[in-house]
């Protein structure tokens, strides 16, 4: 448990080391990166094993950092952060396995990659708002370089748009936090102190500050209508980075909303709650319909991420224990599943067929040429549709139950979202991999030989197995995570805000 902060330090050390190793050989850089990610995952799993769920944050490190304004280097975890830390470990490891084929400036790629991971671990452990913000920024910068240097379609545009949105969002967050600190005469930037300070503010100020902080974070979470960076960014990014972006980075935004915006400003939240819930539901349905008509395979997955993050946001703003626990479960679930989907589309299919146009993919009998990729995509697609047996099902079910308690109408619309998700996922499965299903005998043997692709490599298989294993395990035994999440929501920090209310 006390080793948990080392995930941050090791990731940054690994970044430096792989940069150095990359000067010698690509293989060395890969090995360093994988080793770092695996060790960090190991540490987080050991910590998870020893973790005793409790209400409230359990401090890991707390040392004064800057005297004035009072800022502490304060790391702490609860069941929510534990869930996301384990997710980060899994997504990072799988992402590296799916980036195994990066040949161009390999060392630098993995250096940026691990720096991003280190920042993400940091955010999930920060109990000081300023520290939180620092790690948050650290996570944003490498994204830009990963996309701009190693990306594909429209990469400069995608990278720039993503960076601008992220920085604008974090600017809002910073403004809100500093305002609270100054106006509320806070004794420190610690989340607990800041909460006390925020309570002294007049309701009118709380409403405005909440909007700054929440929309700042929600930008990164892909809340409609601030989501437009997400599909372009995901599509432009190299596979490993898409996996992290959709899998983990979007969770940073949702986590920020849940950890900072809601507990600090319950009054502001109560004011904005109906509007936010509607935005979340519109996002679910709108992004689902957009995904239904995309021609670029990766855009389908990109919009599906926006739709699924809509469920996360809906769970959070429904603001009762049930819905929020579902939202956290959905964060984990979507992190794993989106990673898997991007891996299949970006790495397994695109690197071999060199096209992502669904029309072109339809013309190839892909399920016979890449049976392993087809199998993985079918499983990932089912998981993404919220099929029972995979992690998405308990998550969406819990969100639906919780949302119903807050507002039956929104729950009904979310159920429509489930249906739309099924439609676009099934379309993607059908059009991409099973476009041509006539029997083998109908084809001249030569036509198949023309499309001969390399087999799926071992790193790909390992990464896929890791993620599929995680989604199935949580699908069959959601208690593993819910037993951490539910106690964490009993914390006094959430008492003022998690009372549901009716919309």
């Amino acid at each position, binding site marked *: 448990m006390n080793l948990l902060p080392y995930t941050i330090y090791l990731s940054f050390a690994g970044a430096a080391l792989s940069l150095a190793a990359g000067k010698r050989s690509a293989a060395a850089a890969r090995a360093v990166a994988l080793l770092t990610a695996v060790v960090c995952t190991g540490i987080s799993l050991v910590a998870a094993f020893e973790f005793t769920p409790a209400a409230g944050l359990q401090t890991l490190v707390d040392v004064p950092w800057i005297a004035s304004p009072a800022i502490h280097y304060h790391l702490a975890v609860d069941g929510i952060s534990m869930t996301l830390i384990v997710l980060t470990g899994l997504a990072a490891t799988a992402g590296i396995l799916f980036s195994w084929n990066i040949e161009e400036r390999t060392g630098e790629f993995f250096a940026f990659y691990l720096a991003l991971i280190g920042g993400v671990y940091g955010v999930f452990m920060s109990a000081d708002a300023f520290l939180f913000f620092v790690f948050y920024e650290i996570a944003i910068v490498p994204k830009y370089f990963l996309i701009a240097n190693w990306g594909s379609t429209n990469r400069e545009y995608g990278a720039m748009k993503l960076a601008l949105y992220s920085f604008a969002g974090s600017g809002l967050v910073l403004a809100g936090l500093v305002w609270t600190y100054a106006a509320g005469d806070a004794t420190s930037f610690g989340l607990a102190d800041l909460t006390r300070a925020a309570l002294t503010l007049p309701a009118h100020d709380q409403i405005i500050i909440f909007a700054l902080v929440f929309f700042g974070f929600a930008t990164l979470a892909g809340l409609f209508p601030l989501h437009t960076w997400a599909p372009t960014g995901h599509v432009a990014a190299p596979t490993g980075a898409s996996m992290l972006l959709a899998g983990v980075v979007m969770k940073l935004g949702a986590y920020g909303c849940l950890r900072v915006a809601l507990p600090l400003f319950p009054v502001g939240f109560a004011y904005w709650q109906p509007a936010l819930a509607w935005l979340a539901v519109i996002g679910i349905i709108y992004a689902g319909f957009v995904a239904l008509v995309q021609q670029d395979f990766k855009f389908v997955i990109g919009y599906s991420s926006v739709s699924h993050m809509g469920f996360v946001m809906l769970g959070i703003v429904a603001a009762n224990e*049930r819905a929020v*626990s579902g939202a956290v479960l959905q964060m984990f679930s979507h992190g794993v599943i989106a990673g898997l989907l991007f891996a299949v589309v970006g790495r397994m299919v695109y690197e071999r067929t060199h096209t992502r146009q669904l029309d072109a993919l339809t013309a190839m009998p892909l399920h016979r040429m890449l049976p392993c990729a087809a199998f993985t995509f079918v499983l990932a697609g*089912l998981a993404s*549709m919220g*099929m*029972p*047996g995979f992690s998405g*099902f*308990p998550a969406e*079910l*819990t969100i*639906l*139950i*919780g949302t*119903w*308690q807050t507002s*039956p109408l929104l*729950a*009904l619309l*979310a*159920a*429509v979202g*489930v*249906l739309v998700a*099924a*439609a676009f996922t*099934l*379309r993607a499965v*059908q059009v991409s991999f*099973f476009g041509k*299903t006539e*029997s*083998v005998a109908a084809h001249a043997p030569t036509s198949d030989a023309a499309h001969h692709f390399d087999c799926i490599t071992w790193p790909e298989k390992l990464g896929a197995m890791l993620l599929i294993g995680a989604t199935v395990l949580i699908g069959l*035994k*959601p*208690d593993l995570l*819910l*037993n951490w999440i*539910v106690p964490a929501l009993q914390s006094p920090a959430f008492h003022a805000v998690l009372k549901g209310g009716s919309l």
Partner: protein
Amino acid sequence: MNHLPILSLLVFTPWIGALVLGTLRKLSPGTARWLGLLFSLSTLALGFVALSSFSAANPGMQLVEDLPWITALNVHYRLGLDGLSLVLVLLTGLIAPMALLASWRVERSPRQFNALFLVLQGAALGVFLALNFVHWFVFWELSLIPAFFLLKIWGGPGAARAAYQFVIYTIGGSAFMLLGFAALYAATGSFDFQVLATMAADGSLTTKLAGLGHFWPQAIFLGVLLGLAVKVPLYPFHTWLPPAYAEAPTGLSMFLTGVMSKMGVHGFLRILWPIFPAQLHAAATPLLWLALGGVVLGAFAALRQTDMKRMVAYSSINHLSYCLLALFALAAGSTSPTAGIEAVSAFNGIALQMFNHGLSAAALFFCVGVLEDRSGGKRSLADFGGVRTAMPVFAGLCGIALFSSLGLPGLNGFVGEFLLFRGIFGLTPWAAAIATLGLLATALFLLTFWQRVFHGPQGSGVAKFRDLSGWEIVTLVPAIALMFVLGVYPQLLVQLFNPLFTAWSAHLP
């Protein structure tokens, strides 16, 4: 739970078979076929084991297995068997191997075909045995996946569209059913069918839902109704069915109509009837009209078909609508003083009709498959004629299946429909009167089938048709034999569920 978990074995043995077939890539097609059949037969064998320890006189759940599963949502893994599920398990045990035998000549990846088929079989059994919504829904949804791929990859030219439509329709219904149960859980804290039914019976469910106002409790009922109605299907949610049944490979058509359509009817009896008695009663009249729509329009639509598979598909809509008609009649007439006796008869009729329809529809799809095989893929009524002289054995067996479906006295179909009509007539005479129109049209289209295919001048190439092989006779004869046995001695089945339904009828809501 000290006894052998027979019910879990029933559900999971086919899945183990699927896993074996799925992982052993080097299996020869022949071995894969035999292994598939063997695992498929496990249901029949285990079904008889369950039958031997089943006490029909006890109307409660038997051989119950109960394990805690998701504590955060208070979900228990609970399986149980009563007369209704036992009959459906036996039906599955009969139809599944029959469908695999009918698919014996599938040349394209028989290993994968059988693996998917076994997944489907296990999921159907899970639906029949589950007592908690969460894993009931797991099995319910998972059954779609193998069905989708079997239909899409092994189906006919229009299969892609049919498969997509089939899955989206069903998921469309299920999404709202899921929401309905989420809402029930939000109000009661339980997903357990029996717990919810008890709450419904003592009125506490209504009290708990009262806080939602007037509209939302109705919406919950409609959501659950929609999920089940699409599956059966209830008119007008049936439009996915004819293309799906028509494009599916023969074995899958047999299983879809024989077993999967029963999942919906079973859901009506297991979920809607006990948990939503008041809402069902209130909605009974419009629902009766919808069921009548299925009975009458289904039969007339079948009459208009030239594609034989579509004809049998519409006849399935017609036959299953009788089951729903009886159930809605029960809901409508449950307040009349003499309802008890009619209710027993209607319930027994529903269960018997499910079994009978499974036998006759599967047999008919198999017969159409034989004709397709002999003619090189033709299915139109116009392409045949005079088949009787070329294939006398086939004509005999197919004729029996046709007349069973038509409800000829002496064969099984008659007993089921008689019980159904007796019940419906006693409860809602007007509905019974209109439904006879459907009976008439059913007789018409089945006789048309018989006449156009087996009589008249021989169609081109018909003279060269081979009669049934020994293999095909083995596939068909068990079902045909049962049609006679149940026609003469329906008590064989009825005794399994009669006490259960007598108990239900004694407590009509």
